[in-house]
């Protein structure tokens, strides 16, 4: 196959080359300027990015349907070869998991009892928004995904995103019906994590490889290869306890995280909607203020109403001696409940009442 060059080239080449060179230099300068400016003021282009996201996602959504088909073929093709082996492994795993299930059910009961006893502040419920991946960044510089769920469905920036196996990243941009996810492997990704079972805290930093680094480990951290890594929830960005991956040790002795998730291979993801304890706090403060008001008036009718609004919580009643109702209420409960909770002064107060 031979290609011929344009006929008109011979006549206008000198002029063309000059103008080409000029606009070439201009465009190079503009690119560099954009890079530098974007580095300094990263948020400036966010609107442009989100707008592009919004406009292009329907197109990508449409275009990606055949690629999803291609992908399912690929997966089926893969699966065909190891169907017997897979079956055996799954059966073994299943029998192992059944044992674990029994154990988990037992432990769940125990945990519920303890939580009741200790009056643990339970994590707020997490709800999901599912979305299909319509685009990945397709390049070596940035690791992002675009999914076809956005603000309309309740996705907001900062929310954690998981696939069926574990944490994959978080939302960094949203459009009306589209959002962009920064994968944990991206150069800009920083995720506070917890390494189990030693409970060492670390920050998982992406470096554009498939295995993110574990950084800021304390010197006396007791981590082995194969330890489980979960999100720690530190910093209030992500819900705690999401499975992330397992640790692997590199030749230099540093630790990296082998993610559970399929990363770029993922086709459906779930965005987690999660209300942070910090965001609920103002309400409880208000309640506390109301209670205080009610007590300062020292009217007996509102006083018993206040404890009823709370489940079994004991600590917010430092005024127990003032209330005639509280001693009987405490008396109906088991004595252990008071012990781990109330500060010494309160328990003393109860005894006095």
């Amino acid at each position, binding site marked *: 196959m*031979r290609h011929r060059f344009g006929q008109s080239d011979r006549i206008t080449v000198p002029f*063309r080359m000059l103008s080409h060179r000029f606009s070439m230099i201009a465009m190079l300068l503009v*690119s560099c300027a954009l*890079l530098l400016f974007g580095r300094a003021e990263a948020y400036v282009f966010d609107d442009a990015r989100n707008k592009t996201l919004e406009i*292009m996602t329907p197109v990508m959504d449409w275009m990606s349907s055949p690629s999803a088909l291609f992908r399912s073929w690929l997966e089926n093709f893969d699966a065909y070869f190891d169907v017997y082996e897979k079956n055996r492994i799954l059966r073994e795993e299943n029998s192992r998991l059944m044992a674990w299930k029994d154990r988990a059910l037992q432990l769940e009961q125990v945990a519920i009892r303890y939580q009741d006893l200790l009056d643990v502040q339970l994590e707020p419920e997490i709800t999901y928004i599912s979305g299909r991946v319509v685009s990945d960044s397709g390049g070596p510089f940035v*690791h992002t995904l675009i999914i076809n769920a956005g603000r309309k469905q309740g996705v907001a920036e900062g929310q954690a995103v998981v696939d069926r196996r574990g944490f994959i990243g978080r939302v960094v941009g949203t459009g009306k019906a589209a959002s962009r996810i*920064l994968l944990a492997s991206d150069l800009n990704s920083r995720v506070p994590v917890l390494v189990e079972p030693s409970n060492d805290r670390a920050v998982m930093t992406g470096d554009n490889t498939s295995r993110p680094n574990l950084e800021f480990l304390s010197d006396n951290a007791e981590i082995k290869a194969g330890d489980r890594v979960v999100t720690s929830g530190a910093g209030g960005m992500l819900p705690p306890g999401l499975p992330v991956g397992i640790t692997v040790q590199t030749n230099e002795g540093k630790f990296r995280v082998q993610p559970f998730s399929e990363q*770029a*291979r993922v086709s459906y993801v779930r965005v987690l909607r999660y209300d942070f304890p910090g965001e609920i706090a103002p309400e409880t403060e208000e309640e506390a203020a109301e209670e205080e008001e009610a007590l300062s008036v020292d009217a007996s009718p509102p006083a018993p109403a206040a404890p009823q609004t709370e489940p079994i919580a004991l600590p917010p009643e430092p005024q127990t001696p003032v209330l005639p109702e509280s001693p009987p209420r405490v008396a109906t409960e088991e004595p252990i409940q008071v012990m781990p909770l109330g500060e010494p002064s309160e328990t003393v107060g109860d005894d006095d009442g």
Partner: protein
Amino acid sequence: MDRSLTRSFSALYQLSIPFAVALFCVMFTMLPWGLSSGVVIAPSFALMAVYYWGLYRPDLMPPIAVFLVGLFQDLMSGGPLGLWSLVYLAVYGVVVSQRLFFIGKAFLAIWIGFGVILSPLSVLAQAFLSFILYPIAARIFAAVQKQFLNQP
């Protein structure tokens, strides 16, 4: 008057074809192919488009078009703006400056030329896949050129 209007329309049309092809290439690359686990290695079809048009018809693929294609990819991927523009402009600049060398050469030489240009990026698996797939892409670009630009 009428004729010059027609001519400028025709020029616009001619300019739009390679640009549209390159934009489509960006989107095509960014489809979730799922070929990779973790490290994204989808071949960069837009790079091939920039190479192809830079070689055969740089007059239809001016630097500003190259810049816009890169900008589009940056906006889509959410990365730093100007990064892909810079990569594409660099490739384009090298190709255009070496055009005279490639004139009249066999396709194999042009293919190898593409490999040479990719070599600074060769640490990336993406570059390798792009190299492998270039002949297919070039054939498609040639078909587009023949179909829409009345060029052999």
